[in-house]
């Protein structure tokens, strides 16, 4: 019997939304996040359509401001920050560790409720008050203090989502420390768990900073405390510091679990143990540590001192090293492997390619001189979409295609999955690569209108968004149809060696009839050789 058939005290949907089973909670996250993703993607498409020609095309400037703000807030706080950790982390952390659940199952359910509650509050800001927030997702003071749009409500929603993120982090850290199966030493843990471990530390240490910052924005708007308001002796730069002290490490909350999933997929589809296991594991932690010290690179043109800019630029270059360590190890793992180009592997290869472009363009911005030229231009937009969409979201899709048969017990149509991947890969590059050029030529980000000389590239980019969405629709249609009509997958369709594949698909309610004893590393494929 799988966990889908588990007896519950509650009927119907209540047996899901009141379940403390980590697998059900993981799927709850997956479903809610994909709904938020669809909302954010729709807003993105509308933005691109508006930008197909100069001047007003389908919306007014104020609507455009609201649309790009909500696109950013929804995609960042409701999709890519929970990212892979919330759905796949919840589902697979106990399974990969050889445990029956996370350390605090009730707290885990509470985290999901906070997530959904916070998401509902954010979305309600669309309809309440004097129009949706129009500040951009960065809610920079002093504009966020003065605008009459529903900033306070949206910000409170994000605060609640932050609570969810903190509680998940605490839960995962405790789980990893306390609930490893016998024989599961730190260096026998799958690399996905290492990435979750590093991510959870960032969640715990960084998220409270945004929590207090958001509360201060609300107090600023309601009581006029003046911390960020120059008219009262406050300093908007302090807001930027506090905001980025969280929001830069948050980038690593987004990307680290994707790196972890990629590190799982590569050895399985190259039929080869991962190259440099320890280097990949430690580099996750190194990224988390150094990533905490680079926030000032968002503020190079904000008027911080030269010495501060020098230090932040240096650390920005340093944080590229552990990322580079990972990329080189992944590529080395492929070398002389017996590579099988299934959908998860194709997404993984796209991840490495797109993440490398995103990462290297990040260094262009990390250098003080070039930063001045491209600051707040489309170059930045291109860069972070290559990291967040090309990196984190392609990693998300890789994980989705990799673990789909385990979660649902069925296999999707593999040809359709590859077709969707190909269309998305093309669409993605057509959509975002022109933005590098646009930015270099001087097109500022967040602008509703532009000079005629930018139109060609904007039009190419908009066409790319249509291709990308076509690929997304094919992918989701394939995955949804296969829930019922896919072929039965079996326990271990990829012949992977980690623990989650050694139980039936979908897993039974308590995961393991008997807690396994671990005697080898996570990528030891020797046992499959005889078959």
């Amino acid at each position, binding site marked *: 019997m799988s966990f889908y058939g588990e007896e519950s005290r509650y009927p119907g949907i209540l047996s899901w939304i009141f379940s403390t089973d980590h697998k059900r909670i993981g799927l709850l996250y997956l479903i809610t996040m994909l709904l938020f993703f669809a909302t954010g993607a729709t807003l993105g498409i509308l933005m691109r359509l508006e930008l197909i020609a100069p001047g007003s095309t389908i919306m007014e400037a104020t609507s455009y401001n609201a649309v790009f703000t909500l696109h950013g807030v929804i995609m960042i706080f409701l999709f890519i920050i929970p990212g892979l950790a919330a759905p796949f982390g919840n589902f697979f952390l106990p399974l990969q560790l050889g*445990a*029956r*659940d996370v*350390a*605090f*199952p*009730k*707290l885990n359910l509470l985290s999901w409720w906070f997530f959904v509650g916070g998401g509902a509050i954010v979305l309600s800001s669309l309809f309440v008050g004097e129009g949706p927030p129009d500040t951009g997702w960065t809610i920079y003071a002093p504009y966020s203090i003065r605008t009459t749009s529903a900033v306070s409500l949206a910000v409170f929603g994000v605060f609640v989502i932050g609570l969810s993120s*903190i509680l998940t*982090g*605490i*839960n995962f*850290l*405790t789980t990893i*420390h*306390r*609930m490893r199966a016998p024989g599961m030493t730190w260096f026998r843990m799958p690399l996905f768990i290492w990435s979750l471990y590093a991510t959870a530390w960032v969640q*715990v*240490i*960084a*998220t*409270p*900073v945004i*929590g*207090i*910052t958001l*509360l*201060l924005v609300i*107090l600023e708007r309601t*009581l*006029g*405390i*003046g*911390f960020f308001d120059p008219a*009262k*002796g*406050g*300093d908007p730069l*302090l807001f930027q510091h*506090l905001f980025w*002290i969280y929001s830069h490490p948050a980038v690593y909350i987004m990307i680290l679990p994707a790196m972890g999933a990629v590190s799982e997929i590569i050895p399985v589809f190259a039929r080869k143990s991962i190259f440099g296991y320890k280097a990949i594991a430690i580099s996750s932690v190194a990224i988390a540590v150094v990533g905490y010290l680079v926030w000032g690179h968002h503020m190079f043109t904000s008027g911080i001192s030269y010495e501060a800019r020098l230090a932040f630029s240096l650390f920005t270059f340093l944080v590229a090293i552990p990322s580079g360590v990972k990329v080189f190890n992944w590529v080395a793992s492929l070398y002389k492997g017996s590579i099988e180009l299934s959908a998860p592997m194709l997404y993984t290869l796209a991840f490495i390619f797109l993440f490398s472009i995103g990462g290297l363009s990040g260094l262009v911005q990390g250098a003080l001189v070039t930063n001045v030229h491209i600051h707040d231009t489309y170059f930045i937009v291109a860069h972070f979409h290559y990291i967040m969409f090309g990196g984190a979201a392609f990693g998300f899709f890789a994980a989705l295609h990799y673990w789909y048969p385990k979660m649902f017990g069925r296999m999707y149509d593999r040809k359709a999955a590859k077709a969707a991947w190909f269309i998305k890969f093309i669409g993605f590059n057509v959509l975002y690569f022109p933005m590098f050029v646009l930015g270099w030529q001087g097109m500022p980000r967040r602008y509703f209108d532009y000079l005629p000389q930018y139109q060609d590239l904007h039009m190419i980019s908009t066409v790319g968004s249509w291709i990308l969405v076509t690929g997304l629709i094919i992918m989701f249609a394939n995955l949804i149809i296969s829930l019922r009509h896919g072929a039965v997958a079996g326990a271990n369709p990829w012949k992977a060696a980690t623990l989650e594949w050694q139980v039936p698909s979908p897993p039974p309610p*308590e995961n393991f009839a*008997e*807690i396994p004893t671990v005697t080898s590393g996570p990528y030891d494929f020797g046992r499959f050789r005889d078959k």
Partner: protein
Amino acid sequence: MSTAVDSISHEHGDYAGSKIGMWLFLLTEIVLFGGLFLLYSVFRSSNAVAFHNAATELNAGIGALNTLILLTSSLAMALAVSAVQKGEVRAATVSLSVTIVLGLVFLVSKYAEWSEKIHHGIYPNSPELGLRDYGEGLFYSLYYVMTGLHGLHVLGGIVALIVMLVLLRRGAVGRDDFAKIENTGLYWHLVDLIWIFLFPLFYLIT
């Protein structure tokens, strides 16, 4: 085998796990207040004279009294935890009740202090503060935000203590399972500790 199942279905079975979770939570609390301490240090360094002038208006006597109240409550809390571990339910009940009462006394005193200040027109964005130096306004904004957030934590702590009292009477907390009350104690001590920093920063440095 069955013990392994118990330890998982019984989420409080893992004593060390619940401790790790609590300490991590306390870490997030420190970072939460850390943002405010950061603002305090920046504004203090840029408005040293105004901060000095503003602080002289706060009553250090009441601040000291509040410090004494919270320190005593922490003592009572520690006694309660130790009584629970020894299985002395009566003594634990008394100590917990004393902790709760002292927490309430602290809040009442804080309420009186705030009311008096607000009565004199000293509150964020007030016309009175608008006439003074920017720094004095920032000082009092910090004062209200930091002691306010701290007060909310005291309130939350009191609620947790009342829950512990109920669990203690029901026997759900006792010699065999004292992780919950220990964790509540850790939280209470942290809230106390934060006040130990707030007291000199607002009342003593003049």
